[in-house]
C-alpha cells in the first residue's frame, strides 16, 4: 500500500540527510517532510499542501487560509489549484506525491482514491457530528464502505437558472412538469428568443442536465442493476436520452462551439431565458454581469411534480491524506475544524454559491431560496456519474460520448448504445 511513498527523489534526499545526521533540526520545515510523527512539537512550523479543484474560489480560499494562519502561526497552508485537478491528482499519485488536505468533488477520482486507502479513516472524528448526516452517508455509499473517508463541506444542486427580466418579458410561470417547460421553451423560440444557452464545447457541461434527467427517469435501482448486468443504458435511459435530445434542439445553433466561460458570459448578458447548469455557476454569472437578476427552479424532469427530486451532490469534501505523519495530520484536522466553524462555513458557501452542510448554516441568496426546501427535507438524489466506473466518469469520457452523439444528431438508440459500450470497456479495466 505504501509503495507510492518510496518514489520521490525528495524523499530520497530527505532520507540521505537523516542518514548523515545533517537533517535533525531542519527536516521539519521541508515541504515534503518525512520526519517522524513524534518530533513535531510546539514551535515548529508545519506546511500543509492544500489542493482544491475550483478555480472560481481561489481568492476566497486564500482569505480563509490567511485568517487560519493568523490564528495558528505554526501552520502554513499552501493552496494548489491546478487546471484539470482530477488528472493532475492522479498523475501526482502515480508519482507518489499526495497533497496533505484535499477539497474536491465527490467524483470517481475521489472514490478510487478512498478505496485505495489514500485518505485517512475519519471514524469517530468529532468533526463528523457537525455536518449533515445525509451527506456523510452519501459519501460512504459512493465509496461503497461504511467508513467515512471525508467530511462533506458544501453541496451543490442542479436547477434551471433563469433570467428574471426575460422570464417576465415572455410572461412565463415556473414550470412544474417537463411538458410545461418544453412548451414554454417552444413559445420563446417562436417569438424569436433563445430558450436555452449551452456551452457544450466543454463536454462536461452536458453532465448536469443529463444527471437531472437520468436520475429522475431511470428508476431508483438502475445503478445496482447496471452493475449486476440486469439492465443497460439502452434499456433504462430511453426517456432521459429522448428528453436530452429535445432539450438540445431548443439550444442556440452554435451550442457545440461555445465553451463554458463563453456560455456563462452569453447567458449573463441576456442571450437566453434559461440556463441548465449547476448552482456553482451563479457567482460566475454575477461577476460577468453584476446587474443580472437570477431565479432558479428544480429541473422538472418528469410530468409528475410530486416525484421530482433535485440532483445534489457533495461539491467540496474535505479529506486528509494518509501520510503517516502525525504532526501533519493533526495540523490538517485543525484546519478542517477551522473551516467547519459556522461563520467560516457560511462565508465560503455564500461566496461559492453553494449550500453548506454545517448544521445551522443557510444560504441567504434569494436566487437559491426555491431550492432550499429540497435540501432541508432531503428530496435530493446524488449524481449518477459518481457511481459510474472510474474509466467512464473521469476525464469527461461519458460526457464526450454524449457530446459526440448530440452534435451529430444521432438517434436515441445510437446514443445509448455508445454509453453501453463505454460502460463495458470501462468496467473491464477496473
Amino acid at each position, binding site marked *: *500500500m505504501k509503495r507510492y511513498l518510496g518514489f520521490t527523489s525528495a524523499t530520497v534526499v530527505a532520507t540521505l540527510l537523516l542518514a548523515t545526521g545533517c537533517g535533525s533540526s531542519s527536516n521539519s520545515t521541508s515541504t515534503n517532510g518525512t520526519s517522524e510523527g513524534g518530533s513535531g512539537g510546539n514551535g515548529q512550523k508545519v506546511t500543509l499542501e492544500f489542493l482544491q479543484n475550483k478555480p472560481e474560489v481561489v481568492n476566497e480560499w486564500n482569505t480563509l487560509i490567511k485568517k487560519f494562519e493568523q490564528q495558528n502561526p505554526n501552520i502554513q497552508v499552501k493552496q494548489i489549484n491546478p487546471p484539470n485537478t482530477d488528472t493532475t491528482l492522479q498523475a501526482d499519485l502515480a508519482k507518489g506525491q499526495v497533497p496533505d488536505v484535499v477539497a474536491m468533488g465527490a467524483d470517481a477520482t475521489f472514490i478510487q482514491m478512498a478505496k485505495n486507502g489514500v485518505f485517512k479513516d475519519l471514524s469517530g472524528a468529532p468533526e463528523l457530528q457537525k455536518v449533515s448526516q445525509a451527506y456523510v452517508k452519501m459519501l460512504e455509499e459512493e465509496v461503497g464502505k461504511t467508513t467515512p473517508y471525508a467530511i462533506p463541506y458544501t453541496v451543490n444542486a442542479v436547477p434551471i437558472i433563469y433570467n428574471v427580466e426575460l422570464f417576465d418579458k415572455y410572461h412565463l410561470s415556473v414550470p412544474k412538469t417537463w411538458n410545461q417547460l418544453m412548451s414554454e421553451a417552444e413559445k420563446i423560440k417562436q417569438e424569436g428568443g433563445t430558450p436555452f444557452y449551452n456551452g*457544450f464545447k466543454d463536454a462536461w457541461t452536458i453532465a448536469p442536465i443529463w444527471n437531472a434527467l437520468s436520475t429522475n427517469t431511470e428508476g431508483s435501482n438502475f445503478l445496482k442493476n447496471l452493475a449486476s448486468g440486469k439492465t443497460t443504458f439502452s434499456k433504462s435511459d430511453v426517456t432521459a436520452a429522448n428528453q436530452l435530445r429535445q432539450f438540445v434542439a431548443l439550444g442556440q445553433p452554435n451550442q457545440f462551439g461555445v465553451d463554458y466561460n463563453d456560455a456563462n458570459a452569453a447567458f449573463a448578458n441576456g442571450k437566453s431565458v434559461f440556463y441548465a447548469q449547476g448552482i456553482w455557476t451563479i457567482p460566475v454569472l454575477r461577476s460577468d454581469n453584476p446587474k443580472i437578476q437570477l431565479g432558479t427552479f428544480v429541473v422538472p424532469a418528469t410530468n409528475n411534480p410530486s416525484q421530482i427530486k433535485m440532483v445534489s451532490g457533495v461539491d467540496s469534501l474535505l479529506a486528509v491524506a494518509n501520510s503517516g505523519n502525525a504532526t501533519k495530520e493533526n495540523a490538517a484536522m485543525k484546519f478542517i475544524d477551522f473551516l467547519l466553524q459556522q461563520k467560516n462555513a457560511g462565508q465560503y458557501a455564500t461566496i461559492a454559491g453553494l449550500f453548506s452542510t454545517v448544521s445551522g448554516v443557510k444560504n441567504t441568496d434569494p436566487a437559491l431560496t426555491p431550492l432550499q426546501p429540497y435540501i432541508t427535507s432531503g428530496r435530493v438524489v446524488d449524481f449518477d456519474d459518481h457511481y459510474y466506473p472510474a474509466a467512464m466518469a*473521469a476525464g469527461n469520457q461519458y460526457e*464526450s460520448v454524449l457530446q459526440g452523439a448530440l452534435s*451529430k444528431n444521432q438517434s436515441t438508440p445510437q446514443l445509448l448504445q455508445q454509453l453501453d459500450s463505454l460502460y463495458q470497456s470501462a468496467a473491464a479495466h477496473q
Partner: protein
Amino acid sequence: MKSLRNSFAFILMTVPMAVLFFYFHTWPALHGIFLSFTNWNGFGPYHFIGLQNYIDLLHDKQVRHAYVFTFEFAIVTTILVNIVSLSVALALNSKIKLSRTFRAVFFLPYVLSTLIVSFIFNFLFSNLIPSIAQALHLPFLAQNILGTQWAWVGIVIVSVWQGASFNTLLYLAGLQTIPEDVYEASNIDGASAWVTFWQITFPLILPFFTINMVLAAKSYLQVFDQVVGMTNGGPGTATQSNTFVIYTNGFGGGELAYQSANAVVFLVILVCVALIQVRLTRGREVQF
C-alpha cells in the same frame, strides 16, 4: 598516454549524460513496458495479467478510432506542411527584396509554444471567425468549426501554420547546398522553371525532403498540444489522438497499465513507420 587522458575526458563528458538519459528516459520507458503486463490503475496494489491488456486493445473502439484519427491527421498534415514549407522556401530562396526579414517572419511561429498558439486559434475559431461570418452572412462559417465534424480541419490549420516554419528552415538550408552552375547549365539548355524544379532542384534536395517527411510524420503522429488546446478531443471523441487517449485515460481514467500497453504498441508502430519512410526514399537520392 595522451589517448588515455583523452578517453578519460570523453567518459567524464558522456557518462553523466548517459546516466541522466537512462534515469529519466530509458528507465521510465522500461517501467512502462513492465506496467503494461499488470492491471495497475496508478496507485494501490496490482498484479500481473499477462497479455490481457494487449488483447483488450484489439477490441477497444475508442483506441481504434484514436489510431485512425492520428494516422489520417498525420498524413494530411505531413503532406500539407511539406507542400507549404517547400513553396515558402523556394520563394524565400529567390532573389527578392527583404528576403532576410521574411525568413525571420516565417520562422516566428516556431518560437511560440504550441499550446499558446492553440489557445489563440481556439479564440479565433470560437469568437472572431463566427462573428465575421455572421456579419458577411456565411452560415457555414458562423458555427465554431471546432464544435462541428470539421474540427480536425481546425487542428490541421494550426499544425500547418506552426509546423511549416521549421520545415521551411530545413528546405532553405537544402536549397543553398545546390551549386549555381547546375542552374546555369539548365538555363543554357532552355529548361522551363517547372522542368528545372522537378529535374534539378527536387532531386538535389531529396535528402532534405526525406528528413522533413520523417520529422513531420513523427511529430504529427504524436499530436497532443493542439488537441488539448483546441478541442480536448471533441466533439465527442472525434479529435482524440492516440497520445491524448493515453494521457487522459491513463491518468484520468485509472487505466495506467492498460494505456501503457497502448503506448508500447504505439512505440512499435512509430518505429516501423520511420523505418519504412527511410527505406522508401533512400534509393532515390542523387548526388551531384
